[in-house]
């Protein structure tokens, strides 16, 4: 079913060629997509329950086209991992969902990111970025709690949504901290500064903050890259516990992490979605030579 892209074909015809040559040839003027691969959505198994769908989505900073013609769908209440070498555009794609690029000048979205079920195009010029950020949460690469108390960190999103009822805020803060597996460690010091927490605890606090507002999608941008292995494991368990409750899209440079937690995996290369499939398929039987080379650590 899967059509190899021409770049991989070139590699096929010269199997002994070192990978550096391949990379040198893989200039932005000759991306897997532009040389004739079918849109990747045609290749993947049909997703019945779609939460968000990309249609010919592209993104550019000024004249630098970072993402091109992406056509993929993300399953509702499942974990989707985005992998790929540095600079492939995976973080740029993630930050398109909640319109983070709108904070900086020179951004241009093309195509559509449809949020289902209401099929609203996230990146349409007339759709308010603030409104989209109310519906999607984000957890960043480095823990970035506010220099306020633990309680106020989690409550901030609720306050932005006009929740004034103190009992309700307290209840929601507790529930979010429980969901983020942080309640037992923080219940006795809710009003102490969030900066007193360890790095891993701060990141779980950021997850609690993201969950408190009942988001439809939670975006994770390499959430464990600044953490030690123990803290990483706890975050992964946490993400696992959120499966079937909320749609999760996670960018990771760690392929074992994608294998451990993701239902779906998308491999991005030079701004194109080279492969998008079930995680076990991508990692055991990739349909594309480029994917195989990346996951076996031959470049990236």
């Amino acid at each position, binding site marked *: 079913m899967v059509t190899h892209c021409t770049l991989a074909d070139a590699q096929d015809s010269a199997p002994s060629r070192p990978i550096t040559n391949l990379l040198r040839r893989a200039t932005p003027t000759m991306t897997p997509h532009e040389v004739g691969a079918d849109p990747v959505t045609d290749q993947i198994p049909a997703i019945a329950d779609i939460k968000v769908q990309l249609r010919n989505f592209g993104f550019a900073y000024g004249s630098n086209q970072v993402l091109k013609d992406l056509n993929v769908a993300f399953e509702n209440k499942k974990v989707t991992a985005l992998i790929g070498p540095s600079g492939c555009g995976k973080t740029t794609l993630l930050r398109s969902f909640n319109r*983070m690029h709108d904070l900086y*000048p020179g951004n241009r979205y093309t195509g559509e990111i449809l949020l289902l079920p209401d099929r609203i195009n996230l990146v349409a010029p007339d759709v308010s970025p*603030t409104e989209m950020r109310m519906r999607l949460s984000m957890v*960043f690469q480095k823990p970035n*709690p*506010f*220099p306020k108390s633990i309680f106020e960190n989690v409550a901030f999103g609720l306050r932005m*949504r006009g929740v004034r009822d103190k009992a309700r805020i307290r209840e929601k803060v507790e529930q979010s901290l429980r969901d983020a597996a942080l309640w037992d460690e923080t219940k006795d010091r809710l009003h102490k500064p969030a*900066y007193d927490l360890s790095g891993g605890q701060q990141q779980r606090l950021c997850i609690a903050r993201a969950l408190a*507002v009942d988001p439809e999608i939670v975006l994770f941008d390499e959430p464990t890259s600044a953490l030690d292995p123990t803290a990483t494991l706890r975050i992964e368990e946490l993400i696992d516990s959120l499966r079937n409750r909320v749609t999760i899209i996670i960018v990771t440079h760690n392929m074992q992490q994608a294998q451990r937690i993701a239902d779906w995996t998308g491999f991005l290369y030079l701004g194109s979605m080279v492969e998008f499939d079930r995680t076990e398929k991508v990692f055991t039987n990739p349909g594309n030579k480029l994917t195989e080379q990346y996951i076996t650590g031959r470049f990236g």
Partner: protein
Amino acid sequence: MRSIQEIVARRRRQDRWFAVLGVFCTSIGIITLIALLANLLIDGLGHLDWQFLTSFASRRASSAGVLAAVVGSLLVMLVTACVAAPLGIAAGVWLEEYAPKNRVATILEVNIANLAGVPSVIYGLMALSVFVYAFGFGHSILTAALTLAVLILPIVIVATREALRTIPRTIREASYALGATKWETVWHHLLPYSLGGIATGVIIGLSRAIGETAPLVTIGALAFIAFLPDPPVTGEFPFVSFSWLGSDFTVLPIQMFNWVSRPDPAFHHNAAATGVLLIAITLGMNAIAIFVRYRMRKAIQW
């Protein structure tokens, strides 16, 4: 051919010479400052007593005091702070967070930096034509405060911008990602986290304003004031009064200048005592600024 030891010894002598020269140059500045302070203290400290602080200006040096000048300086500073802080902070926030990064913004930025370098007497001239004549405020406390507020506005704006710039991008993104608008991000996060830096800037600005003489002479501040402005609190409804804003006034540096320019040396001691008071106030304000900044740095480390 000289030995290596000789060459090294010669170069080390050079090194020592410069070290000595450097100490000498540095001490010129420090010794001057110490001499200045000592001279002022010897001349003035003996006159700096309760009677001096609680008396009005007088024709006799021994019974003259700085009461009107102290009250005048405090009231002018109060109004200056109330005007300069909100204006400067708002302008700083707009320039840093809202202004589009284009040519117009660059021109604005350069001009604000230049504004800080304009001689203060020019501000006096501007105030004379705008506040005194055009607005008809007269040579009142209000005019003086508005003039000084405009004078220190660039300091407050620059301090605000620098304080905002130390807040990492990730904190702004965290706030926006939770659905906050720009104003909510500024109000709930950026302003609280930069308050220490902003307060430092406002205090530094005020400590500059309290020593300013030229612009206030230009707007026609009086040197001989033997009364206090109307009290801001009254016995009748509505209990607060702003009539003191329109009152004539004098301030410490003008009082000092007036006494220095008299021929009678007894008045020079009064001037020295006023100088001690002025320096004490300025150093005190700078100390508060340093303390605020220190506390701020300890409380929030990005």
